[in-house]
C-alpha cells in the first residue's frame, strides 16, 4: 500500500524533492489522526481500569495521595468481600437476577416488533411511540415507575383495586422491590430490542419467505426456521446491549429505592458507589475491590462479544 505506482504513465512534471513528512505521509497520517482520540481514551478509560485494580489493594479514604494517606493491605479487601460480606452477597445475587430477567427484553422486543411489522395507516407513529420510552433518561423512567407503584396514589394499585386486589407496596417490600425495578428497566430495554428487530425484519429476504411459504411453512415454524436465522445480527446486538444494560443498572436503583428496603435492592454497581462515596467516609479501596469483581463478571461477556466481533472482522478481511 505504501508505494502505489500510478497505473497510467506519469505525465506530471518531475516532482521536486519531497520532505521527510511527505515521503512517509501514508504511514504517519493514521497515527496523527489517532493521537487525540487514543490519548483521551487512554487517560480516561484504559488507564483507570488498571488503577482501580491497584487501588483495590489499598485502604484509602480518597483524600490526598494514595501512597501517603493510604495503607497497603494486599488482598485483604477481597478476603473481606468474599468472606461473608452480607451486602456483597445480596448485591451479587441481585445482579444475577437482573442478568437473567433483563434478557426477557429480547423476546418481548421481538414480539412487539412482529406485532407492529405491518403497513397500515399511522403505523410509523405507532412504532415511534412504542420506541419512545428508550429516549427517556433512566432517572425519569425510575421516577415514573416509582409513582406508578405508589401504594395510595399509584395507578397500578388503582387498577388492581378495580379487580379487588391492590394495596401492593412493591418498592417497600424487600421480596418484591428488585423485581419492580427490573420491570421498570425492561420497559425502555424492550423498546430498544423492538427497534433492532423492526430494522432486522425490514431486511428479511422476501424471496426466502415466499419460497418457505410455498413449501408450507407457517407461523412458528416459519419464524423459527426462516426468520430468526436471518435476524441473527439483530439478536446479537440485542443480546450485547441487554447484558451491558443489566450490569450497568445503577440509575434506576438509586432513584427508585436507593438500595432499600433494608438493602434488598442493592447490586454491585450500587454497592460500590455506596462504599466509595458513603456518608460514613470514603472507602475507595473497598469500593474498587467491588468494582473489580463487577468488572470480572462483565469481562466474561465482553470477551465473548469481542471474540464474536473479531471473528467477523477476520471473515470480512477476505
Amino acid at each position, binding site marked *: *500500500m505504501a508505494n*502505489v505506482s500510478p497505473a497510467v504513465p506519469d505525465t506530471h512534471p518531475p516532482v521536486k524533492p519531497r520532505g521527510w513528512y511527505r515521503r512517509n*505521509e501514508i*504511514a504517519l*497520517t*493514521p*497515527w496523527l*489522526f*489517532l493521537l487525540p*482520540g487514543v490519548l*483521551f*481514551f487512554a*487517560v*480516561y*478509560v484504559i488507564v*483507570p*481500569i488498571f488503577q*482501580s485494580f491497584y*487501588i483495590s489493594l489499598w485502604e484509602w479514604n*480518597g483524600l490526598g495521595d494514595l501512597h501517603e494517606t493510604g495503607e497497603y493491605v494486599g488482598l485483604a479487601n477481597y478476603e473481606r468481600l468474599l468472606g461473608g460480606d452480607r451486602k456483597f452477597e445480596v448485591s451479587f445475587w441481585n445482579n444475577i437476577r437482573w442478568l437473567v430477567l433483563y434478557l426477557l427484553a429480547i423476546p418481548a422486543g421481538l414480539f412487539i416488533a*412482529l406485532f407492529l*411489522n*405491518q*403497513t*397500515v395507516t399511522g403505523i410509523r407513529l405507532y412504532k*415511534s*411511540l412504542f420506541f*419512545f*420510552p428508550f*429516549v427517556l*433518561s*433512566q*432517572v*425519569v423512567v425510575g*421516577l*415514573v*415507575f416509582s*409513582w*406508578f407503584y405508589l401504594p*395510595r*396514589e399509584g*395507578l397500578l394499585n388503582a387498577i388492581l383495586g378495580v379487580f379487588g386486589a391492590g394495596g401492593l407496596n412493591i418498592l417497600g417490600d424487600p421480596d418484591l422491590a428488585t423485581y419492580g425495578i427490573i420491570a421498570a428497566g425492561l420497559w425502555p430495554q424492550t423498546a*430498544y430490542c423492538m*427497534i*433492532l428487530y423492526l*430494522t432486522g425484519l425490514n431486511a428479511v429476504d422476501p424471496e426466502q419467505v415466499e419460497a418457505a411459504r410455498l413449501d408450507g411453512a407457517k407461523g412458528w415454524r416459519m419464524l423459527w426456521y426462516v426468520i430468526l436465522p436471518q435476524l441473527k*445480527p*439483530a439478536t446479537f*446486538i440485542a443480546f450485547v446491549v441487554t447484558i*451491558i444494560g443489566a450490569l*450497568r443498572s*445503577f*440509575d434506576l436503583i438509586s432513584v427508585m429505592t436507593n438500595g432499600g428496603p433494608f438493602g434488598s435492592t442493592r447490586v454491585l*454497581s450500587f454497592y460500590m*458507589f455506596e462504599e466509595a*462515596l458513603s456518608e460514613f467516609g470514603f472507602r475507595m479501596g473497598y*469500593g*474498587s475491590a467491588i468494582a473489580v469483581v463487577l468488572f470480572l463478571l*462483565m469481562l466474561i461477556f465482553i470477551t465473548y462479544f*469481542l471474540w464474536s466481533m473479531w471473528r467477523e472482522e477476520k471473515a470480512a478481511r477476505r
Partner: protein
Amino acid sequence: MFPTPIQKRSAAAQATYKSLLPVALILWLLPLIAVMVFSIRPDADFTQGNYWGLPSSFDLIPNYSQVFFNSDMPRYLWNSVLITLPTVAGAVALSAMTGFALGVYRFKGNLLIFFMFIAGNFVPFQILMVPVRDLTVDVGLYDTKTGLILFHIAFQTGFCTLFMRNFIRALPYPLIEAARVEGVAEWRIFLYVVLPLMKPALAALSVLIFTFIWNDYFWAVVLTQGPDAQPVTAGITAFNSQFRAAYHLMSAGSIVAALPPVLIFFLMQKHFIAGLTLGAVK
C-alpha cells in the same frame, strides 16, 4: 414480508388489528400517561385523595410555570445544554478522525486499537469511577462542567469510533485512491473527500450522543455537586426534595427534564434509528 401482511387476511382480522393497536399503545405507555395526568392536576386533588378521578381543574400552566419560575430547574436545564453540546462536538470530532485512521489505513495494530475502543466502551462505569474522580479532583475540575465534558468526550469516543470506522469502511475506496493519485494530501482527503460523505453518520451520532449525555446520571453525581454544574438528571433529585410529595409539580418537573431528548428524537427520528440499529442488518 413476515408476519403475513394484514391486508391479506379477513376483514374481521383487519378490524381487530386496527382496534388492538391503540389499546396496546395505551397499555404500553400507561405509566407515562399517569405522570402526564398528574402534571396537570391541581394540588387540591391530591389533598382530597382524588388521584384518578377527573381533575377538578386543568392546571397545566400554573404547574409548569412553577417549574420554570420557582425552582432551580432552568439552571439545571441550561447546565445540561452546556455539558451536552460540547460533548457532542468533541466526541464526534475525535471519532471522525480515529474512524478515518482505522477505516482507511492498513497498518500494524489497526485492529488492536479498534478493539481497544470497543472493549473500553463495554466496561462498567464503576471500574473507572475512583481513578476518574481522583484525576478530576487533582486537576481542579471537580464540580465543574468542564470536568464532566472531558470525561464524556473520552468515554463516548469509544462507541463513536466503532460507528465511524464501520461507516467509513463502507465508503467506496477507489474515491480515496483516485484522490491520492492526484497527489492530494492525506489530511485534505479527510477534509474534502471523506468528511462530506460522512454527513449521515455525523448526524446519527450527534443525535445519539446528545441523548446519551443528556440522560447521564451516574457521572453527574460522581463528578459534580451543586446547581452550578449539575445537569438536570441530577438536579431533578434536588427539585423533588424541594417539592416533596407535591406529585403534580414533581411530575411536571420530570416531564420538562425529559423533553429535550424526546424532541430531538421526534425531529431527527431517521438519523436516531439509523444510529441505534447500526449493525442490526448485514
